[in-house]
């Protein structure tokens, strides 16, 4: 029983990460009807920014020991900033020129961006994993066999915080309303005076900020950063977004946690090495049986 609880907690932790990344996918899909293949790489870049920031603090000061809250906060903010900048550039260079091109073009362009970013970081790090300095206090709570480290609690709660923040952004701010409007009907939104281009950029930026910040904390959690750490989580987060209903914000959240927990619990049944397979199987199943996900609505086919 203890083991199941531990697995559940692990699953919820990673599920939170998936949910945050999935939100980025869903936001972009909502406004552009396009899957940003390179979104996972934004997560990865956030993690690397976090690494370089914390490493910089480590080597040039002792703030990591004396004021870890400060260094971590700076790392997260920088991670967000870098991810946002990258996302804006990505949108401008690789996606905007292809807005009316046949569907294949922006998709391949996104794949190209993903390959580019992954391999640039591969070169920069010389294919070595970059190990984070120990900033977060060790230790945690123990309930019998179940352990709950501080960093895990941090990751869990931060994910929830991000989700709440994004919800507030989408529902209560003008920019969020613009995103919702463009997602629902781009041309009418334009007629209503919404600057569609800027809204699309803001959707990219919001998703990127989340992914970047999440990347920083996840990097601290797994204590290292590699150039392909965004690839599989990216695919899984996409799966989560689809499971929950692509284009739907609560769907992304639900999908993320559902996927994380299912994946984690399944390792008890079929073994840890097949964990990734679970995500793909769920994806195929979802797309075959219920492509609009949990919270989505049936999309009409257009001729």
């Amino acid at each position, binding site marked *: 029983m203890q083991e199941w609880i531990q697995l559940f907690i692990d699953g919820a932790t990673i599920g939170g990460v998936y949910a945050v990344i999935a939100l980025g996918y869903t936001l972009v899909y909502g406004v552009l009807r396009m899957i940003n293949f390179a979104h996972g790489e934004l997560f990865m870049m956030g993690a690397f920014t976090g690494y370089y920031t914390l490493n910089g603090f480590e080597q040039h000061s002792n703030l990591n020991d004396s004021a870890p809250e400060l260094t971590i906060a700076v790392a997260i903010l920088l991670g967000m900033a870098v991810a946002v900048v990258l996302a804006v550039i990505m949108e401008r260079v690789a996606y905007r020129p292809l807005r009316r091109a046949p569907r294949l*073009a922006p998709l391949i362009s996104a*794949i190209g*961006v993903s*390959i580019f970013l992954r391999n640039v970081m591969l070169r920069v790090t010389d294919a070595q994993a970059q190990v984070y300095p120990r900033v977060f206090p060790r230790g945690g709570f123990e309930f019998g066999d179940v352990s709950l480290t501080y960093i895990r609690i941090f990751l869990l709660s931060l994910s929830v915080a991000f989700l709440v923040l994004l919800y507030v952004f989408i529902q209560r701010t003008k920019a969020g309303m613009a995103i919702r409007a463009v997602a629902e009907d781009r041309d009418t939104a334009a007629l209503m005076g919404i600057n569609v281009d800027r809204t699309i950029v803001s959707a990219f930026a919001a998703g990127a900020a989340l992914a970047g910040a999440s990347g920083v904390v996840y990097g601290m959690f797994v204590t290292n950063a590699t150039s392909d750490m965004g690839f599989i989580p990216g695919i899984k987060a996409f799966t989560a977004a689809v499971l929950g209903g692509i284009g739907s914000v609560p769907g992304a959240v639900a999908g993320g946690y559902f996927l994380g927990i299912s994946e984690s619990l399944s390792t008890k049944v079929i073994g840890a090495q097949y964990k*990734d397979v679970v995500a793909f199987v769920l994806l195929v199943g979802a797309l075959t049986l219920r492509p609009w996900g949990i919270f989505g609505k049936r999309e009409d086919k257009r001729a």
Partner: protein
Amino acid sequence: MRAVRAWRDGLRRRHAGPAWAPAAIEYGRYVGLPLLAVLAVLAPEYLNAQRAFAVILVATYVVLRSSAGLLGTVVLAAMLTLLPYYMDTFERGLIFNVALYSLLGIGLNVVVGYAGLLDLGYVAFFATGSYLYALLAAPGYGGGFDTGISFWIVLLWAGLLAGLVGVALGVPVLRLRGDYLAIVTLGFGEIIRIMLNNEDASGLIGRHVSDHGITNGPVGIFSIPHPSFLDYELRGPVELYFVVLAGCFLAAFAAGRILDSRVGRAWEAIREDEDVAASVGVNTTLYKLLAFAIGASIGGIGGVVFAAEQTAVFPKNFDVNVSINVLAVVIIGGMGNMRGVILGAMLLIGLPEVLRDFSVDVGFIHLDNLGADYRLVIYGAALVTVMVLRPEGLLPSRRRAAEFQQAALIESELAT
């Protein structure tokens, strides 16, 4: 001057987007490449490999570009057959790879270029063929079953098996379009790799073959014997290169013939608008599965030859980068066009090898070993660039070029 302006206006009318992009391509075609050819021949202080490659690239491009169909093909065939005898060891291994990726590109071209189904998991079929041959032919100590089955028979079986795998992978994705299809096929490719890598794969199936399960896990299968043809053992990249070459021509010929048939027309209809095609009575299910099957067969056959040449297969050989490489070859070379695929293979597989040691020194940027280490970085950038500037690829079929340009034309008309 007026002539230049007229040429530029003609370009602008025919291609949407910045005028300098097609202009650069036209310039490259009529001025740059011939210049390169002349330089390459007259300036022998170039490295041997680079010169040979440049000359071949130019000559091939010129031949491919001409519309002398049969003559062009015969000349091309002759050139390609004589090629290995002018090359050293390194280059021979290189042209084997180029030829192999051409073959794979032809296969993927059927799926992506003809039927318009974006398949990112093509490596799965490649792996099927490779492991089939490896398992059947390798001796026990290498991890195989040591049947004495001939290479050529396995080729046939691999084609069939891979085709079946193609259908099996195609069935669940029938209803998916564009983006979803891409990710799901990507997932399939990854699943195949994970299953090949996991030693417990046999446990899952319920049979225990050896300590390492059926596929020998990450250790791989080795000591695969060389194929023999009429008592002559085919070893080394050159002899197998001829096999691949023959395969390329056969596959290209077959695919071309199919394209000109009912099936090809069905594919075109599906590619343009699947719902409309279905509504006018095209059996989209059948033709999509057929595309998958044919593409997969070719991939499987390529896999068999790969295994024979390498004499060992490891799961690491079949990761997502292979799929991406083949996709890049097809996309950048020119979707829906065999010649474009071959050009793409030469550019994307051959050129980086030739430029392996190439270094760049611009200001404070110092990059070594451009071909070896930065290859994928350049791939990524190239994919984006091609999509933005010339989405139909470098040597597109006229149809695809028209499709892409039409979309751009509609956009520019909507904007005014």
